[in-house]
């Protein structure tokens, strides 16, 4: 017999429910890790159940059945742990529902991606339109026959030179400069529109030249309709000034 013999008697007592306290705990602990003793316990319960047959014979009174049947009519019934076989076609509904859920999830995800894509495209388009409008304005300023073109020069070598293209009625200004001397730290060049009517010079953009001395000012904020007498450049603090600081490094009057 494969059963651990020292537990044999205790297992019989356990089956009968006579084992208590520490003895019972010890056997149950052993059972947890011993399949052959569990099997023996099941068999002993089977043996024990045979004892019931020794007394079999009396039948319950007929009313007992009626009582039971009316009692179970009012009893909720638990779910069977072994569920009845599911007909194959019943699975179709669930499968369709599951497929639908997956489909919805996929479509939603796809929709999110597309929405993101559209948003990106629309932002890109806006930026390009702005850039194009800007470029058009620049070109218009440069090519309009009524543009006032002013060459702003200095007397040092290599000779710095600037060219201002100005549309008075639209307050548009494109200023391009080259060979500008490098600036001390925290300083910048500032362009001034000097009105013909003798009023104070109007600030027309603060800028710093690149390493080769080139710079450009495109469409600085200007009041409309100022008739220019000249354009001038001074050196100002980086943040710019509202009135020019002397000396004027470059100046030029309209052609």
């Amino acid at each position: 017999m494969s059963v651990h013999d020292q537990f044999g008697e205790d297992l019989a007592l356990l089956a009968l429910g006579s084992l208590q306290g520490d003895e019972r705990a010890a056997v149950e602990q052993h059972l947890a890790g011993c399949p052959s003793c569990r099997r023996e316990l099941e068999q002993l319960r089977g043996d024990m159940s045979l004892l019931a047959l020794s007394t079999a014979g009396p039948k319950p009174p007929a009313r007992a059945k009626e009582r039971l049947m009316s009692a179970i009519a009012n009893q909720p019934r638990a779910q069977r742990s072994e569920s009845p076989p599911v007909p194959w076609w019943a699975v179709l509904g669930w499968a369709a529902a599951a497929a639908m859920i997956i489909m919805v999830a996929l479509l939603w995800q796809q929709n999110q991606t597309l929405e993101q894509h559209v948003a990106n495209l629309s932002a890109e388009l806006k930026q390009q339109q702005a850039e194009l409008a800007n470029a058009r304005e620049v070109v218009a300023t440069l090519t309009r026959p009524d543009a006032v073109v002013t060459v702003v020069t200095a007397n040092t070598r290599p000779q710095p030179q600037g060219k201002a293209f100005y549309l008075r009625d639209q307050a548009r200004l494109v200023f391009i400069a080259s060979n500008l001397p490098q600036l001390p730290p925290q300083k910048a060049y500032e362009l001034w529109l000097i009105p013909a009517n003798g009023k104070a010079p109007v600030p027309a953009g603060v800028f710093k030249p690149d390493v080769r001395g080139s710079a450009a000012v495109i469409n600085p904020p200007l009041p409309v309709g100022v008739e220019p007498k000249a354009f001038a450049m001074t050196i100002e603090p980086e943040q710019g000034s509202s009135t020019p600081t002397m000396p004027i490094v470059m100046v030029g009057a309209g052609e």
Partner: protein
Amino acid sequence: MAQLYDRYSSIVYSVALRVLGDTGAAEDVLQEVFIQLWRNPGLFDSSRGNLAAWLSVIARNRAIDALRKRRPESEIDDIVISVEPDLAGDAERARAMEKVRGTMGVMPSAQRSALEMAYFEGLTHTEIAAKTGEPLGTVKTRIRAGLLQLRKAFQT
């Protein structure tokens, strides 16, 4: 359910009656066991033994609990039973009954009464030893030997 009742109510009832000695109390146990089966049909694992044996064990345990006026102690769902004879049919049951009675009849009387005290009266081995004045070890051995003898009777 009615079919199960017709087939097994006699076993359940007679065990409860033998334990409790009172028809009303036996009927209550009968009622309780079948209601449990109705409410939780999954409790009985049909692959691990036959229903008659399972019902008789549940009925006996409930009847003992009722006799000792204690709360139901054994959880119904941890009772797993392994039993040789198939007791589903009336004829098989009748044959098995004969065999059990025959085996009990040829048992030494001290062994048979130890087994019956443990099974039908729900006495612990300690109580049996105190009642009969026999050593505890002897009582334990008798009980186990009695059960194995019943098993052997069905293995031939």
